[in-house]
């Protein structure tokens, strides 16, 4: 990543980090119970719910990786976001209302809690917890690495500390994250997410505007790209730079897999009044669409600027956003954008820190019929433990973590989406089949990705998939198939406990 150590950019990053620390102090003083720590005291309005769900969902990938991916594979990359038109409504109908109402009748703080209530099976809940832990480590590791790299570039750490600069960058980011997440739990997470989500939207809109202006407007941008040998018209075509099956896989995985993302679903437990969920698709979907403007704006403007000869071709596509910011936006906008990128990374990281600690302190012990006595204390300690484990893995196995990060979304989606989106509406789905579906999604996704990428064992076969098909899409479809077929074959009208049945019928 290019150096971003300009005075106003450094100032923006430091002010942002100081603001999150201040919020951490405020939230820590108000965190007195496990309910505060895990679900922020269930006090969120729906506008805040939309904003914090968006902030948790969108990581640094939207700001840094997205424009880079577009530079590499053209507008086919937008298929990752194309489902954004319906996902907020799908979340509302399929899971948000049911999960929030479950939290009305039971002490439901986590997704495995909800799975336990619905299926009454510790095995099902425990399998869900394991899938979440795998996804959490991958997600958290990539966020911490991204955070370290960004701080390294913004604070000019390479010049200050030399070879250990990435480690120092990770340590600074980690210190701030741990400070507010350990003390304030989800209460701090929500409060910082409001700041972070607002910054993300502001930065995305401002940078998109600058990008389209710098490229000369959408018409000039399109003409420049079409006229260039490097990119050509194929760059602008829906399936120009990648097989149609890759694009359809993106659309399917990100459109349906969203139903199994615990860092998003977890936020629905925190809404104060379930009746306010009426406006969730508007607030969540609206904020997501605004935030994605940066992906489209920078993603399409940078190739045009390269084609116009105003930017040098990129050696590393992931430098698209930082280089554009350095060369084409005023320093104050660069500062805002850096704060936005830090926000995107940290808001996702804090959500996963909380979810990971909940798996260790709450979900897995319950799966074994145990209860941790002082959940608040152990939750704080587990937050440190999960974060340090993810950091260690990130430091030791950089490639593996990057790989895990890429398909963490798929793992979580394939594991949890069918059991929740179908199971919360169909009483006939038995616990055994839900467990099989969760295990299928997890194992298929990890197995197919491993076979597709591993080089250690040449004798192992490659996954027998058509060119362009993503293993995650196959795992998601397989998980649905197991749930539906298994229920038809062995399911019967299950005895769901009265209160849960009322929620399912509500």
């Amino acid at each position, binding site marked *: 990543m290019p150096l971003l150590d300009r005075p106003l950019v450094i100032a923006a990053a430091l002010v942002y980090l100081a603001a999150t620390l201040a919020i951490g102090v405020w939230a820590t003083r108000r965190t007195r119970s496990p309910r505060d720590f895990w679900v922020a005291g269930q006090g969120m309005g729906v506008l805040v719910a939309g904003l914090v769900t968006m902030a948790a969902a969108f990581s640094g990938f939207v700001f840094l990786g997205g424009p880079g991916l577009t530079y590499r594979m053209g507008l086919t990359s937008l298929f990752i976001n194309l489902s954004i038109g319906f996902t907020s409504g*799908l979340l509302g109908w399929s899971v948000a209302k049911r999960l929030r109402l479950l939290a009305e009748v039971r002490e439901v703080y986590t997704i495995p809690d909800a799975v336990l209530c619905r299926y009454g099976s510790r095995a099902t809940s425990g399998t869900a917890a394991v899938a979440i832990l795998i996804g959490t480590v991958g997600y958290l590791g990539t966020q911490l690495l991204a955070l370290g790299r960004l701080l390294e570039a913004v604070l000019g750490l390479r010049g200050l500390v030399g070879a250990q600069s990435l480690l120092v960058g990770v340590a600074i980011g980690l210190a701030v994250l741990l400070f507010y997440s350990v003390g304030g739990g989800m209460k701090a997470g929500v409060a910082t997410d409001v700041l972070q989500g607002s910054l993300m939207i502001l930065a995305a809109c401002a940078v998109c505007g600058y990008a389209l202006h710098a490229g000369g407007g959408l018409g000039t941008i399109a003409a420049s790209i079409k006229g260039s040998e490097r990119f050509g018209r194929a760059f602008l075509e829906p399936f120009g730079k990648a097989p149609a099956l890759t694009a359809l896989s993106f659309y399917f995985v990100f459109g349906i897999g969203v139903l199994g993302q615990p860092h998003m679903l977890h936020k629905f437990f925190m809404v104060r009044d379930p009746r306010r969920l009426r406006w969730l698709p508007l607030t969540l979907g609206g904020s997501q669409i605004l935030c994605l403007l940066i992906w489209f704006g920078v993603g399409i403007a940078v190739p045009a600027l390269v084609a116009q000869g105003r930017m040098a071709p990129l050696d590393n596509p992931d430098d698209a956003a930082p280089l554009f910011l350095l060369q084409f936006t005023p320093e104050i906008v660069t500062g805002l954008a850096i704060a936005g990128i830090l926000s995107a990374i940290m808001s996702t990281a804090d959500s996963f820190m909380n979810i990971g600690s909940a798996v260790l302190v709450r979900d897995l012990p319950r799966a074994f019929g145990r209860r941790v006595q002082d959940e608040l204390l152990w939750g704080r300690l587990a937050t440190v433990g999960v974060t340090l484990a993810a950091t260690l893995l990130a430091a030791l196995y950089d490639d593996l973590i990057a790989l895990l990060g890429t398909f963490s979304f798929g793992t979580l989606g394939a594991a949890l989406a069918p059991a929740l989106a179908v199971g919360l509406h169909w009483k006939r789905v038995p616990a055994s089949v839900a467990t099989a579906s969760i295990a299928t999604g997890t194992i298929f996704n990890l197995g197919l990705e491993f076979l597709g990428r591993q080089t250690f064992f040449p004798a192992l076969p490659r996954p027998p998939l058509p060119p362009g098909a993503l293993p995650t899409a196959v795992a998601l479809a397989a998980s649905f198939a197991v749930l539906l077929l298994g229920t038809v074959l062995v399911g019967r009208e299950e005895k769901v406990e009265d209160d849960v049945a009322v929620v399912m019928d509500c």
Partner: protein
Amino acid sequence: MGRRAALFLLSLCTAGALLGFTVDAAPLRWGAALAAATFPVALIALADRRGRRGRKGRLRLPLVLLWLVLASGLLLLMALPGGGPDSFFGLPLGTVVMLFWLVPLPFLLIVWAYASRFDVREEDLERLRNIAAARRDREGEE
């Protein structure tokens, strides 16, 4: 749409997606596109199956419209060779469909349909709280 119809649709989508993403055949790619467009509609239909009398009809139209928007958009993208002719802003027609059809239309439709259909009322919550209180009492006695 009843629960059985929604589940039948969901099963068809699952089979279409599984075949489309695992077997290398051009017709199955079209099946995968159709499955990807139908999946969200089937899941919403399953989630909304228990509307009160008279309200069901109000969702049928938005769901049909949503399916038409998603399926027509994705199938059009598949059908246009090279993204189709140049259109607005000099972008290929397929890209214009992606940006200005497949994102804003479903969003507006779904926001309107969800808000107008949402039906959690105070009496529902009161009933749930009473059930929860009774359960807590029962557990306390045990």
